[in-house]
């Protein structure tokens, strides 16, 4: 943590960049898209939204971890990301206290 170690090997490729894995991710994402559309056709009542959001969450986890590289970044990045998402969730819940109970 000083001037001297600003670039100490933490440059992007702590791992070997590969084409293969990313193409796999892409195929997975496309399949998940098909699944969401298919599931949307079935009437799941109140769970429709939940299922759709669940799949979207999985998809975004793939994008964030692989395409956006978070999986291979420093712990700091992960902490920040988790923290921000948590704050966002809490804000949603707190607003829900008003919106859902009014």
């Amino acid at each position, binding site marked *: *943590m000083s001037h*001297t170690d600003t670039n100490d090997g933490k440059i992007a490729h702590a791992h070997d960049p590969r084409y293969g894995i990313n193409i796999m991710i892409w195929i997975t994402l496309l399949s998940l898209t098909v699944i969401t559309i298919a599931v949307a056709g079935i009437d799941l009542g109140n769970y429709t939204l939940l299922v759709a959001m669940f799949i979207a969450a999985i998809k975004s986890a793939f994008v964030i971890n692989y395409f956006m590289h978070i999986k291979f970044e420093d712990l700091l990045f992960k902490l920040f990301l988790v923290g921000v998402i948590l704050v966002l969730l809490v804000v949603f819940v707190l607003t829900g206290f008003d*919106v859902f*109970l009014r």
Partner: protein
Amino acid sequence: MSDSTVSTNGDYVNFYQYKGKHTGILGWLLSVDHKRIGLLYLGSMVTFFLVGMTLGFFMRLELWNPGQDIMGPQTYNALFTLHGIIMIFLVIIPGIPAGFGNFFLPIQIGAEDVSFPRLNLFSWYLYTIGGLLAVASLFLSGGPIDTGWTFYAPYSLRTGTEVIMPLMAAFILGFSSILTGVNFVTTVHRLRAPGMTFFKLPLFIWALYSTAWIQIIGTPIIGITILLVVVERLFGVGLFDPAMGGDPILFQHLFWIYSHPAVYIMILPAMGVVSEIIPTFARKTIFGYGAIAVSSIAIAFVGTLVWGHHMFTSGMSDESRWVYSFLTFIVALPSGVKIFNWVATMYKGSIKAETPFLYVMAFIFLFSIGGLTGLVLGSLATDVHLHDTYFVVAHFHYVMFGGTIFIFFAALHYWFPKMFGKMYNTKIANIALAIMVVGFNMLYFTFFILGYLGMPRRYYDYLPEFQGMHQFATVGSWVMIAGILLMFINLFLGLKNGKKSGNNPWGGMTLEWTVPSPPPLLNFKKIPTVKYGPYEYEHYDEVTNNVN
């Protein structure tokens, strides 16, 4: 970097004298040096502050009698709106972080500059553009905006005055604030001097760091809210318009999700400055360093959860009313911890109550009043009565003016010798402070009583029974004028012909006191290695003899 700090004949060159590619005014406007940018911010801020105060002065004059005195209701409504917008978005949100933060954050952590110097200059330009847009909007055909600084829908959707332009100005100012936040967080993580761990950071840095996080997380929410109001006015999308099925209460949620945390953007940096000043003048290590540092983060976090306390009477659900009330009381605790630790720091110190320290004492008194009345407002039963009355106006002037602005003045007096290498007349400075404190309490304490008796805010006109108190407050505002003008004149004279101050006039221990006054371009000849905490006066000699 000795080549830039020493001139050809071996003299030391400070950052004012240093000649880069550009000289004169361009040398400032195109400089990416954090110190020059900091001073640019301070200059713009003080200018806007004087404008905002003048508006306040005219508001007080209008309230001398019930009914019309010197202006009509439309003008008055525009005045308090502009007063609020200027004071909040142009003065106290950028105030300490962008001004003093820019100047001292890199020096205090032992860095040569911030992480993204060009971005830093860019944020200042955004700030200036935002400010100019806000001013320009006054001259558009619709006339000055009259919504109050809260822009509540649906009034802001319906009023005929010019709303879009000042809102875009606020959006741009928000963007500037975000970029400063990004810059500071990155800088603190990346550019600390060797040996400076997080728990050896000066508390001002902790405060700036927490503030920067609020800026990053909170500001986008008001950004989108403002954009939606603009879109709403341009295209009529209907999201906040009850006539089209929209819900005005949701506007308030979005607005306060940012604007409550914003009050901690205003106060946290000020609290950081207090934590610097007390140890310096008490020659004593701060009491409970860890608690003060962590409480900044705690305030930043819990502070994002209490926005609903501005909406107790807005018609939101009864459940959320008590939830927000509860959380509001929780957020007061870390502020309490800070106050107690500061007072405890004075215990067994060796105190020399010079001007900055006197400001801090005034701050502790005034901010405690402001904060404790915040508790009155956080309590449901009382807030239902006091919401949107002068009690609230009193509360926030105590915390914002008595809190942040007083500490802004304290910082000005504390770091003046470092920034300019000169000293002002301390006697006159103390007299100015005394006048200000008297005027302040005459002006704003009266508001508490007015509020409890049922005087609503944003009132151009009022019931005759309130007249006496309004007049007393207005007289108080004149006393304040005297104090503030005296302070500025004194500083100005110090700038012109004050005597040289030396590198460490107060006996401070943080890194800025180890570099020359004014500092050289890249701050340090050699980046220091940090061994001790920022206020460990046991090691005072070792640290300060190690002068650059």
